[in-house]
Each structure stands twice: as C-alpha cells, then as structure tokens.
C-alpha cells in the first residue's frame, strides 16, 4: 500500500473537484464536494481496493487523507 496510490483512488471518487486538490495532507471533509455520499463511496472504495470493510467512524475520525490511509494500514495488520 502506498499513499500516492491511495490518494489517487480517493480522488477518483469525486466528479467535480480538480484532482490536483487531493494531497495526503488534504483535510477532505473541508472539500466542497464532500458529503454523506462521499462517506459511503470511501467505504466501498476501501473495501474493493484494500479488502477491509471500515465503519463510518474510522472515516469520521480521520482529518486528512494520510490519516485515513494510516487507519486502513492499521486495520490490515
């Protein structure tokens, strides 16, 4: 797992936001396009790509894309 790949997969869930806005340090809940739908898109993406079914709390507790990446890595251990 690497953060660059994770960030790209994270960015691919959005339709309107410019991909250049997504960086490991991006505080994703501050994105205009972030919504409750994005939350369930992330659960689906992480499940499909990393074979971990996270709950909403894991995503809600993460501030940045890096935080979420770290949480997924932790769950995969």
């Amino acid at each position, binding site marked *: 797992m690497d953060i660059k790949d994770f960030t790209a997969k994270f960015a691919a869930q959005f*339709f*309107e936001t410019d991909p250049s806005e997504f960086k490991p340090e991006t505080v994703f809940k501050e994105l205009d*396009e972030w*919504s*409750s*739908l994005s*939350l*369930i*898109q992330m*659960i*689906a993406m992480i*499940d*499909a790509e990393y074979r971990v*079914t*996270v*709950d*909403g709390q894991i*995503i809600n507790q993460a501030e940045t894309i890096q935080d979420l990446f770290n949480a997924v890595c932790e769950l995969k251990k």
Partner: protein
Amino acid sequence: MRTISGVSLKALACAVPGQKFTLTEYAPNLVDEKSARQIENVSGFRELRISPDEMTTSDLCVPPAMMMLDDFGRENVGAVVFVSKTPDYVSPATSHILQARLGLPSSVLCLDINEGCSGFVAGLYVSSLIAGKINAPVLLCGGDTNSKLTSPNDRATRCIFGDAGFAGIVAPETGAGDTPFRFANFGERAYSIIMENSRHRITGHPRNNGCYFMDGAAVMNFALTEVPAAVRGILTESGYVVDDITLYAFHQCNRLILSAVAKKLGIPPEKSPFTAGDTGNTSSASIPLLLADVAGNADMRRVICAGFGVGLSVGVCIADFSRTKFFTTTEI
C-alpha cells in the same frame, strides 16, 4: 438454509405511481443542479416515483393483483399475504382491506408482514410455506409508499426512496424443483435504519422524528459484509458457484451499493442489473420491479433474489422463474 419444494411463483406484476420527479423537482430545498448530479452519479437515481397524497400501498397493489386474479381465478385462493412497512392503516391489517377490494373469498387467511427491503424474499417464503401446506394458491402482495415517511428535510432518504407495489401468485406445482431460502438477521443494528418515535417507543432526541432515519455508512458496511456472506452461504449449501446463477436480482438500494456487492462476489454487471434509475429505492417492490423489467431478456432459470435492509435483515433465495408469467409494469 430452508428448502421448499413443489411450489412456485406462477405470475408477478407491479405498479408504480404515474407521477415522477427529478431530484431537483422533488427536493429543491435539499439539492441544486450540481448536488443532484453528484447524487445521481453515485446512487443512479435520476427520477423518483412518488405517490400522490391520497394513494396508499393497497392502491398500488390492487391493479397488479387484479391481473393475477383475472388470470388464475379468485375462488381457490387460500391466503392473501401483504408485505409492507407502509400499510394503509395501523389497524386493520391491509390484507383485510385487500381481501374485500379484490373480491377474495371470506375464507382466506389474511396476513400482514411488517418488512422492508428484504420483504419480497420473506413474503415469498411465507407464501410458499402456506401454499404448500394448504395446497392452494396464495396471493402475495406488497410494496411501499416510502415517500410518505421520508422527512422533507433529510437528503439521505428524501433523494433515494420511491413508491411501488406488486402482486404475485404462489401456488403448488407438480414437479416444481427446490427453492432454497436463507435469512440472516441483525436486530442489534436495528437503529441504523429506523423511524424513531413512529409508535409507542419514544426517545428524547429522535432523528427525523417519525420519519425514516438511515445511517448510510452503517448500511454500506452491513451490505458489504452480510450480503456477500448470505449469497456465498446459500451458494455453498446448494452446491452452486457464482457462475451457475443465471441472474442476481439484488434489492435496488442504490447503484453504488449494488455494484460494490456484485464486484465483491465476482458477479459480472450484466448478471446483476440496476434498473431503478427512474423509480428510486422502492424497498420490498424493488426486486419484483427488476424481475418484471428484465424477464423478457434474461435467463430466469436460476435466479438469486437478495433483499437486505431494515431490521437489519437479509433474505436470499435461489428460484426458478423460467415458467413464471411476468406482466408489464402498470402506471397508476
């Protein structure tokens, strides 16, 4: 796993309200063009079928039920089973209303089942049990007027639910093969999809008071874990592999969940269609609507129906619908 033999779904028909709205038409206070497009891209719902104020679930069941009864007769019907979470009244049961409206014999058993998105499979199971035991046809009706129970201020439910009804005849049939069923229930997760303060249990700070509340993340998590487990379970117990199934009729909750579940199970998209883009999530009516939509083109010999949702609950079965008569969906 529970297997029923010698009973089949003889015919099935559905009805939807003629009235339909785009998301921006229906919920202008919740979405603008941009956010509606985002929701459509993810959920797959472009339009929602919405019943007028005076239209109830029994109204959505009567036209398809009449088609069943005109074809199969009324006199021999042994029971009417009605599956819904939006009955016409709290009491009496809507199956009693249907018995009278449909001109069914006074001797029928009237039975309401309070179930949502897994309701078609639960209703098919109960109807099959009754039909086999009493050796008579059972009229299975169901569906929901979901729109009457979504809060005008809640985007998560208001922009996905639609209204529809269905009716089918479940009857004994000599030579009908095995229909395995499997159920999985998670009552401890009931609060993930709930209408708080809708009856006697009162909470101080209800979410969407009296209307549906849905925790989308919890539902996604549930769908991604428990639905594949139930499908894999019934396949294994029946001696099938994923490719042996000719059609996967998943509850049409939304396109994102459906495609994520199908992908996880290794099911190709053409075998797990999403056809609810212009109806919305119609809870227990969504599998019947899907079956009626695809019946003319799909291989109906070995169909997995997988309903999942409120409860939380999952109901799956493997049925042969190749001899089932499917009617074109009616607009009312």
